[in-house]
């Protein structure tokens, strides 16, 4: 009986996605007592998308998973923050420097995660946090670059994200980044793969609905890097993009490719106003 009711509901949901869209809960997230903005009005550029308010992926997860993120001790992602803390103080490379040599404590990174990806005037390119970390490693430290979506990179991003936890994402979309942003937007709405799905098909038209057993979120990246229970490690934004594009049965772009950088900028801007949560916990 219950199964039938569910099926009927699902059928309704498919026929009227707008009416039944949502499916996110109304819980509130406070990490160690610090209130997070997990639901807020959509930024101006999203007018016409039908997505309002914007919601953190946290709302689409089960209570157990949600509560793991509410306490930094329970958050398994914090293990990697500890590891990155060691890396932060480790001298590497030909310049005999560690992160701490220039930046002192990681507290100096406060606010950084909230504004990335952003324009780098000197290099004349849009830089993600990962690109900036690698630029520091190769040019300042003379060390080897981290692989773009590797474990040490994810950990370092997590350490930097923690410093901005609770601050609203505020990525610039105008000025020199406008062109890249447009490119990212186009990618977001481009259908790929044998299944011919764009990001928007799932995360804009159908968030709150289920795709098989998965509860679709809005695809916000304010919580990245994300500790996923399914693989027990931190996952980077580009790793997630790759997974999503692969799931449409397409050849994916490479992590760190200009396409994914543009997409990251666009997707990040869709979360303008949400709190930085990284490292978040998801399933």
């Amino acid at each position, binding site marked *: 009986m219950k199964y039938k009711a569910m099926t009927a509901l699902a059928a309704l949901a498919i026929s009227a996605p707008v009416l039944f869209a949502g499916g996110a809960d109304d819980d509130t997230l406070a990490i160690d007592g610090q209130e997070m903005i997990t639901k807020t009005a959509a930024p101006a550029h999203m007018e016409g998308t039908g997505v309002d308010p914007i919601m953190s992926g946290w709302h689409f997860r089960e209570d157990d998973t949600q509560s793991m993120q509410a306490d930094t001790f329970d958050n398994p992602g914090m*293990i990697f923050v500890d590891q990155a803390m060691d890396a932060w103080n480790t001298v590497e490379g030909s310049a005999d420097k560690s992160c701490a040599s220039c930046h002192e404590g990681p507290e100096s990174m406060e606010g950084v995660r909230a504004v990335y990806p952003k324009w780098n005037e000197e290099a004349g390119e849009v830089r993600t946090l990962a690109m900036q970390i690698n630029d520091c490693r190769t040019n300042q430290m003379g060390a080897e670059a981290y692989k773009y979506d590797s474990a040490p990179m994810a950990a370092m991003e997590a350490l930097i994200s923690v410093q901005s936890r609770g601050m609203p994402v505020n990525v610039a979309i105008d000025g020199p980044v406008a062109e890249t942003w447009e490119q990212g937007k186009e990618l977001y709405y481009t259908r790929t793969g044998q299944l011919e799905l764009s990001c928007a098909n799932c995360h804009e038209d159908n968030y709150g609905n289920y795709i098989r057993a998965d509860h679709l979120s809005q695809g916000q990246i304010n919580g990245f890097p994300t500790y996923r229970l399914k693989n027990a490690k931190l996952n980077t934004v580009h790793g997630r993009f790759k997974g999503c594009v692969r799931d449409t049965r397409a050849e994916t772009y490479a992590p760190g490719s200009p396409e994914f950088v543009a997409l990251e900028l666009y997707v990040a801007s869709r979360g303008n106003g949400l709190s930085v949560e990284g490292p978040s916990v998801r399933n």
Partner: protein
Amino acid sequence: MASGVKPRVKVPGSASAGEGIVIKTLISHPMESGQRKDSDGNPIPRSIINRFTCDFNGQNVVDVKMEPAISTNPYFEFEATVPEAGEFKFTWYDDDGSVYEDAKAITV
């Protein structure tokens, strides 16, 4: 040999006598089960933490035997009653013979 092992413990700084408190422990460890094979088909030897204990002022609180099916970074949460001020001592025993320790003092 497991690398990057780091114990973390959360105990309240103070409690009233006889009060039950919640203790949380987490240790980063790969917990290699011994059932997996590497890319060349050779078995990866088992490397897990096989025992975890917690003592309060010399008196045992929990003593856990752990098996290979336990996932990476084992987490334990348990309750204890605090009769007096003292120190919780936590010990993890690795397959390779390493012993990891942590301690947290509590006032009443």
